[in-house]
């Protein structure tokens, strides 16, 4: 038998995007639309025209004609911009999504880690969550039992193992979650962006663990924005762009291909569109005006967004900054904060804005972008439109990294004038 454990041929995935999913998911709306379509269909039929299925619903290929093979023991990185289809690919391989076209052959037991701590419940204790999460990831009870001590040791949270998870710090949570996942023993493993959490030391342990897994002859497919990790862990890279596979080969080549497309700037993303507008692209720019995925704390935030508008006046462009746990950190609205609305002349516009410097803690962040109408109806929303990382955050002159995972929030508070400490008057009077 051949050594191929994953073979994907002609893989494609089509999503149907209703304009404003929130609304089209409503029963009443659907009924109205169905009735309208029926009338139109009857009319079409009478006139002998071809039948067109529901309008207002847009087809969107998140993945198209993807072919590749993975052999036993191979570790492969999947690289690509936001929205390139990486997660969609992993979800198809892990049977969460059904492919629209093509087929996948898998041989071997499969586990996928699309997020760490899936199913963790804050009310349950660490111990209970290990069993819950283990079962969700496909481990048998006796496997979890057999590895229980190893899992707890690896996580380093022994003391809190019988404490409800809601009392854990973010770092402890991430460590426990990764430990369960690290003890999965399947022939094939799919991993998506899980290294984005935790502190540097813990990330290193995760990386070590991943290379151990790889050396044990298991196959790993690995999505990461952390290019250094990708380079260190894998020898082969697959680059996706707008749902198509554009490169499959040595990791150096893959990284070169990816960075080249980054530097070209203008990447067309397929983020769909709203009823009256579409956010076409969005980038964080570095000091030279080139797109980047890292932000240096304390420097201005240069953002560039391309939008398409229609005739609707008063559309607001809004930014929501989130930290690695998706908690909101900051918000900006062009209408309410700057009294500037998007033009109501149809066309494509480039919006450039510089936000004042923020002293962000190190870790991952992302911006959700929305266009909002005057009646505060979300028109087009792109979650994680811009994701970026703060590699190190050092508010002082001593070597100290202010990290998200410390649990002290995500902003290092800065002094406006030097700190003054002097004896208080009352103290002197006494």
């Amino acid at each position, binding site marked *: 038998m051949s050594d191929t454990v994953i073979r994907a041929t002609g893989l494609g995935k089509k999503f149907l995007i209703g304009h404003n999913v929130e609304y089209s998911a409503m029963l009443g709306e659907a009924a109205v639309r169905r009735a309208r379509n029926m009338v139109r269909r009857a009319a079409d039929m009478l006139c002998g025209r071809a039948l067109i299925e529901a309008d207002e619903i847009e087809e969107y290929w998140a993945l198209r004609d993807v072919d590749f093979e993975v052999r036993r023991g191979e570790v492969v990185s999947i690289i690509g911009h936001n929205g390139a289809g990486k997660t969609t690919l992993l979800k198809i391989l892990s049977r969460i999504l059904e492919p629209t076209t093509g087929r996948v*052959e898998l041989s071997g037991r499969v586990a996928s880690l699309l997020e760490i701590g899936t199913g963790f419940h804050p*009310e349950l204790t660490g111990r209970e969550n290990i069993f819950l999460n283990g079962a*969700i990831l496909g481990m048998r009870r006796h496997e979890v039992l057999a590895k229980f001590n190893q899992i707890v040791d690896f996580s380093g949270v022994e003391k809190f193992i019988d404490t409800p998870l809601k009392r854990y710090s973010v770092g402890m949570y991430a460590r426990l979650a990764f430990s369960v996942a690290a003890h999965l023993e399947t022939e094939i493993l799919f991993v998506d962006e899980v290294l984005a959490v935790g502190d540097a030391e813990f990330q290193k342990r995760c990386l070590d663990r991943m290379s151990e897994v790889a050396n044990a002859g298991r196959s790993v497919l690995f999505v990461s924005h952390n290019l250094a990790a990708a380079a260190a862990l894998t020898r082969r890279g697959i680059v996706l762009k707008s749902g198509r596979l554009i490169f499959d080969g040595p990791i150096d080549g893959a990284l070169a291909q990816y960075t080249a497309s980054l530097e070209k700037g203008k990447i067309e993303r397929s983020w769909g569109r709203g009823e009256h507008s579409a956010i076409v692209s969005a980038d964080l720019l570095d000091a030279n005006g080139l797109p980047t995925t890292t932000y240096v704390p304390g420097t201005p935030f240069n953002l560039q967004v391309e939008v398409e508008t229609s005739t609707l006046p008063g559309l607001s462009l809004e930014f929501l900054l989130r930290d690695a746990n998706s908690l909101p950190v900051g918000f900006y609205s062009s209408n309410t904060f700057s009294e500037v609305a998007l033009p109501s002349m149809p066309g494509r516009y480039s919006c450039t804005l510089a936000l004042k410097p923020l002293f962000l803690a190190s870790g991952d962040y992302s911006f959700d972008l929305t266009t909002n109408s005057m009646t505060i109806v979300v028109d087009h929303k792109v979650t994680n439109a811009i994701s970026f990382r703060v590699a190190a955050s050092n508010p002082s002159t001593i070597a100290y990294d202010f990290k998200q995972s410390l649990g002290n929030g995500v902003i290092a508070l800065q002094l406006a004038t030097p700190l003054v400490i002097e004896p208080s008057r009352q103290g002197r009077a006494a």
Partner: protein
Amino acid sequence: MNDWPSERLILEAGRADRRYWGDLWRYRELFFILAWRDVALRYKQTVIGLAWAFVRPFMTMVVFTVIFGHIAKLPTEGTAPYAVLVLAGLLPWTLVSSIFSDGANSVLGNSQLVSKVYFPRLIIPLAPVIVGLIDFVVSLVILFGVMAWYGMAPGWHILLLPVFIALAVLVAIGPAMWAAATIVKYRDFRFVIPFVIQIGLYVSPVGFSAKIVPPGWQLLYSLNPMVGVIDGFRWAILGGESPLFLPGFALSLVVTAGMLWLGIRTFRHTERGFADVI
């Protein structure tokens, strides 16, 4: 670990998964652990926890007995105290309605899992069955307490109670699976569920005996499968005092089987698209 498939797995659009039912069996541990999670959370989160499981059915019994038995003066069955008659209807009703409502909301409620891992989705609406059964066992204690208070002892009929419990579960899960699949697609359908349950309470013989329905209407009334379930419970608990109306019971079975078939079919058909829309 050895009954996990290590052979080839082929994923393709519209491919009927022959291994689905085998998978369902293989994932039984996940089923139990999800059920255990729901039970643990229920008893951890409500401060009065277990007490609540006693107080609620007991208060409902008192209210129904006063309203239907004493104010409306509806007849009981044979010589059974009205409170026991009510309780024998209330128990299966609570079991069915809680499985139905928890099951219906379960897939949307577990969207985090559905979008991040694979497992046979049928596990999700089935897990509330366990929670419902545990609450049911608690309320059985009340039933036997009240019966003892009236100096009643169950006869041999009680041995068949498990059969009717199983029937109650089957009545609940068909609609639960159907509703769970529908709610994923049409979110606002979930607001209909409490309404359906409320109507169900009035059209089912919970607070009164099904025998007060005129004989000519009995068969039509039995189209509501809860009639069969509650009659079965009363027969098992009150013994000979409450004879079973057999044609009606058979009809209830047929309706239950039909709903179960529809529920499984709808669920299985839409299940593969859950992650697309959730």
